[in-house]
């Protein structure tokens, strides 16, 4: 089973990398760009077939290590 974790800065927390990429896209002529947020994707291979257990475990991983919940939000997809 594979878990895909996406970690992004929380809404309202300024994302300086996203902002810089936004400006760069604009200066390249991509006029429709409204906002850019840069985060990270963490792919975790799990040795279990129990989706509920996997989700609970990955949530704990996010809370303890993968995300800093003071500034970041995360999403989990199990596939």
């Amino acid at each position, binding site marked *: 089973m594979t878990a895909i974790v996406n970690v992004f800065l929380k809404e309202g*927390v300024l994302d300086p990398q996203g902002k810089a990429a936004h400006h760069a896209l604009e200066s390249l002529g991509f006029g429709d760009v409204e906002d850019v947020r840069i985060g990270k994707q963490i792919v975790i291979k799990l040795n279990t077939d129990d989706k509920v257990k996997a989700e609970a475990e990955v949530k704990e991983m996010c809370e303890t290590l993968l995300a*800093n919940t003071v500034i970041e939000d995360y999403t989990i997809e199990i596939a």
Partner: protein
Amino acid sequence: MKVAVLRFPGTNCEFDTQYAFDKLGHTTELVWHEEEKLPESIDLVVVPGGFSYGDYLRSGSIARFSPVMKAVKAYAEEGGRVLGICNGFQILTEAGMLPGALKRNNNLHFISKYQNLCVINNDNAFLNRCDKGEVLNIPIAHADGNYYIDDEGFQALEANGQILLRYSDAEGNPVVVNGSVTSIAGVCNASKNVYGLMPHPERALEALLGSEDGVRMLKGFES
């Protein structure tokens, strides 16, 4: 005073920190991150600067799981004094020993220069030899020093006098250096025994080399 200086893979300010406290007449001991115990009868733990674990994932996020950090946490919970400098500050926020978090600088640059700092609160062991409103000149060198805390957390910091230092001009007016909330450069915990700052007082010991303002900061721990 006996000072324990922690050392993680990627730490690079441990010898400067040792030199600083030795120069001030104290004894120091380097403590490798795999140690589960701190040395006996110490007066201060310093988490020095550097790039522990290559700053992988987030600065300080891996170091906080090192065996020695459990001992540091227990030491602080018993009232022991802990100082985190630069990467050490990042580690202490990641460990939940200090409030807030440190993000990438808002200009995305690694900023390395002398910087004026205004002393905001001095009723603590760290800054008791400095005056409130005094301007100190201390080097900074970081990419992730943009201090963030939510509104509620900020109100608590202010109410409890936990804001130690702000980036400022020569007159003490706050200036934007890296995007930190209200230009915060250093904070302490509510019980005022755990301190963190991005600037490097251990690099400001000699007037000849630019500034000796770091001496008074580090000497604060003698009382």
